[in-house]
């Protein structure tokens, strides 16, 4: 029972909450003077969160390799396009 | 091959022809609406009535020929849908509720398909003397019929999905991913409801989501379902053959 709650899943949840609070601060002008840099940082943090949800919550870490590769490729592609559009 | 299986083999042939008719519908759409009428994408809902009337005056011959072909080919909606319904009938035991619901739905949805070319043909009948305001209203009407009529089509997708989930055949008549594909399409065409509210942008009736995305999903769905139905019918025919060879017979008989 203890191992159920003191687990990697719980650790990931803690990290996700921490990342949310960090990006929240970034969205309120903490850390970067430049809103463009802050925005790009927010998007990077967002897609790191997305990657944790995909790999650990959706259990893609142990899925067949092609499936993991496909989803990781989507994360990188989507993040790059959005950051590119945001900065342009 | 006994007599019953012989009839069945012919029925499968007819059902396959019906499944192909869906492909014909999509091809005719691209040719008529795309090339002959130039309505892919639609004229912007933000155009003035006079600009819109001019489009109908300039393209009236193309529109007349296009709608003539559409009246024939859009009727294929009904024939195509029935090719899926006969497969659904084989999935259901007891009371074939989803089959009946789908027949009613497909028959009703067919009206929307035919109303589009008929209305366009009416606009192109005398566009020079018609008040541009009328043309604008009628043109809006066509697109609203086309896009806002999404619910019966979504219901049909959901019926197909539920029937596949409840399919008692081993293996199932359609592979199970087809059910999820249908659910996805049903959710995806729902933003069509938004064309009521906006005249520009991605959710207007000429927009990226409400037009392009929904069009590609919807007509892509017809093509995917045509291919899946053809495969399902081929498998059914093979099973008939195999079972009559083993003298079991009647795989296409409704299950009791």
């Amino acid at each position: 029972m203890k191992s159920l709650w003191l687990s990697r899943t719980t650790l990931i949840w803690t990290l996700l909450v921490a990342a949310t609070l960090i990006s929240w601060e970034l969205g309120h002008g903490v850390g970067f003077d430049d809103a463009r840099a802050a925005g790009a940082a927010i998007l990077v943090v967002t897609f790191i969160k997305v990657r944790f949800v995909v790999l650990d919550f959706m259990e893609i870490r142990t899925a067949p390799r092609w499936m993991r590769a496909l989803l990781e490729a989507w994360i990188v592609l989507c993040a790059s396009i959005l950051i590119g559009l945001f900065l342009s | 091959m006994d007599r019953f299986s012989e009839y069945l083999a012919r029925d499968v042939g007819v059902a396959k022809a019906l499944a192909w008719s869906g492909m014909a519908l999509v091809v005719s759409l691209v040719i008529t609406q795309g090339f002959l009428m130039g309505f892919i994408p639609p004229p912007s809902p933000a155009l003035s009535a006079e600009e819109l009337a001019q489009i109908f005056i300039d393209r009236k011959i193309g529109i007349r020929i296009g709608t003539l072909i559409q009246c024939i080919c859009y009727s294929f909606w009904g024939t195509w849908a029935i090719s899926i319904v006969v497969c659904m009938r084989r999935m259901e035991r007891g009371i074939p509720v989803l089959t009946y619901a789908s027949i009613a739905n497909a028959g009703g949805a067919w009206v929307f398909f035919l109303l589009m070319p008929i209305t366009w043909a009416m606009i192109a009948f005398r566009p020079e003397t018609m008040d541009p305001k009328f043309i604008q209203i009628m043109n809006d009407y066509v697109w609203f019929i086309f896009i806002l009529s999404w619910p019966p089509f979504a219901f049909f997708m959901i019926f197909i999905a539920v029937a596949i989930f409840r399919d008692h055949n081993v293996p199932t008549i359609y592979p199970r991913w087809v059910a999820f594909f249908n659910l996805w399409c049903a959710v995806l065409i729902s933003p069509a409801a938004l064309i009521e509210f906006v005249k520009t942008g991605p959710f207007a009736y000429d927009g990226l989501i409400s037009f392009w995305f929904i069009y590609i999903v919807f007509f892509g769905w017809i093509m995917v379902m045509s291919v899946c139905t053809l495969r399902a019918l081929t498998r059914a025919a093979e099973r008939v053959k195999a079972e009559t060879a083993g003298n079991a017979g009647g795989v296409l008989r409704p299950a009791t």
Partner: protein
Amino acid sequence: MSEEAAAISSAAPSVAPSETRHVPGEGGIWVLIGGDLVLFSVLFIVFLTMRAEQLPLFEQGRAQLNQGWGLVNTLLMLSSSWFVATAIRAARLQLAGVVARCFGAALACGAGFVVVKFFEYGEKISAGLTLTTNDFFMLYFIYTGIHLIHVTIGMGVLTFLVSYSRSGGFTGDKMRNLESGASFWHLVDLLWIVLFALLYLLGGA
């Protein structure tokens, strides 16, 4: 293939052997998840493209959002996803009671999300901000609306899973069905994470 794979995995034990790798849930659910990721990718791109065209308006729109609600909803979504992931792990340990309670907790978080959205929409509409106010609020209402449809469907799935998991016996098809439902709920979470950043957080540029 299998002999070759076995030879490779025995030669390199640090790599998980292919038979322990498995697709979560049934293959079909990934057609739906992949399809939804495509739709939302388009929606995200549309948002930032339109934002670049009307930056001052989008900035003003973002300032009119209640960011607290957005944060609360993100935390609710993350927690519900955590409960669902834990439920799946509990199912592997055959703890039927824990599984049902975890799905129930996830469902409660989902309900909280809907309630918060209800108040948020109410606040906007009573302030005269609606779908037709401007392009920012059009996208805000439509995107969160499409997401809310997903939340509702996901809550239906979770409700089913609560009663489905009570009887225990998590093997084969039953385990696969739990994983399918869980994967869909994680998708709902994932989409909200990106929507939260785009709508509520991204500033000035």
